[in-house]
């Protein structure tokens, strides 16, 4: 199971990453070596083993639906934004 150059470019598109030609070559080679290593997991008998996606057994930890008293103000939430207008995050126009 090796990743082709085309597949890598598709992954990069999905992950919103532009890659240079030099990066493509290096990353393709590294990724394929990592994938080769993953093949070893096939040695394990896993069919009846449940998944452990979480590290603690707790499920559905709820709290009251009220904001923390020391939550961020709008100004604080915006102060690291690259571009702001009228108290909103500004991005390049989406609709032509």
């Amino acid at each position, binding site marked *: 199971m090796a990743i082709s150059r085309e597949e890598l470019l598709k992954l990069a598109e*999905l*992950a919103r990453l532009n890659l240079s030609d030099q990066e493509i070559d290096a990353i393709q080679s590294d990724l394929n070596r990592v994938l080769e290593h993953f093949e*070893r*997991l096939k040695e394990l008998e896993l069919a009846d083993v449940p*998944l452990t996606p979480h590290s603690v057994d707790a499920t559905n930890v709820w709290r009251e639906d009220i904001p923390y008293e020391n939550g961020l103000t709008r100004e604080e939430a915006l*102060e690291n934004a690259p571009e702001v207008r009228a108290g909103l995050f500004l991005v390049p126009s989406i609709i032509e």
Partner: protein
Amino acid sequence: MADLTQLSAAEMRRRLDAGEVTAEELLEAHLERIRELDPILQAFVTVDEAGAREGAKRAQERIEAGEACPLTGIPVALKDNLATKGIRTTCSSKILENWVPPYSATVVQRLEMQDAVLVGKTNLDEFAMGTSTEFSAFFPTRNPWDTERVPGGSSGGSAAAVAAALVPLALGSDTGGSIRQPAALCGIVGFKPTYGRVSRYGLVAFSSSLDQIGPFARTVEDATLLFEAIFGHDPKDATTVEEPYDPARARGVDIQGLRIGCPAEMFSDQVDEVVRDTVLAARAKLEAAGAIVEDFSAPIIEHGVSTYYIIAPAEASSNLARYDGVRYGLRVPADSPNEMMKQTRAQGFGKEVKERILIGTYVLSSGYYDAFYATAHRARTLMRQELRKAFEKYDLILSPTSPTVAFRLGEKSSDPIALKLADFCTIPANVANFPAISLNCGFADGLPVGLQLMADSYRDDLLLGAARTVESILAIEPKAAPIAAHG
């Protein structure tokens, strides 16, 4: 004054409370040492002298009022992936180079509640992805035992700072060994608590089901003091737990009859002979002191690295999707949002981070999800089952922390796979969720060798107590590293 920096945090506490030294004097001694040595070591990304001086003043007032807590007035450094309100928090990444958080991590707030003196932010592999601190987007940190060598990583800045006595205490984060491995390579103590012990609120997320914050110190006692200041349930992190913890047990346990297992898979020929010999010599001392030490085998350990390098990149690819140039962090201007995001991420992330995002994107993509991601989570279950069986027989699992001593800068960074394979002793504690600690057990060719102890989940108190006992049996004088150029 410089000798003040050589004291343990516990001894600093005693002298502060006795009025033999003030918090300001203690801080100035450390700042002086930082000014002298950090240009060589490059452990810090940011030193907050002004903030630290204010902190020391507050601490001194509190000490004089007789209201000191265990860490009041003690200098502490923070890995630069812990959010600090008003202080730049970079993750050693270009994408967060100028990010000033509007809030502080829970662990930072808890240190502030004690009036610990927060000195600055330490270097790391970008977004905590790496084992040498060479993947910092800014500069590599040097190992104080040999400045031609790496301090380990990803929390290499915190480890080097403590080892060189720039601070007595520091916090790091550990996802696959990022506290324990640099502690081993720098000859100090590094502790990864059980997942859920310490709030991750304000820790910049790498792999959310594996990340855990923990302490660096030069003695187990000091590491325990720092851990006890930060652990416990936090409503802001739903994965934190309220499990029993006995501080008395953490002060020492009887070595007589302590059952210790040594997994063959962590003493294999993948471990350098000098490291293995040093750890085995330490093991023999524990046996002579009355511990019952046995060999056992847990073959699942050999699948830990593969399991980890599926789960961690998968979670990272999702967590790092937030760096899109919209709300904070770097933005590279472009005509469309899509192009803006792609260029921002292309320029903002380093190669290692890009690789891990792409691995994660791949293992989560439809068609491969079962083959990789689900398989890794099944292997994770097996790892936990097999090691829990071992903990029915043993109180502790003992192993080397790292298969090598500190390596030279540039020696391995060109081979990211080799770097990843070296994590096989530390990864099981994250993947299967056990607390684990690394402490110095001797030297090989003048470089420190780390011994790792691991205990069953939530037995952090037993682990710290046992580590303290082991430390006293090995009787290796805890001292700051010489700042040694390669000779």
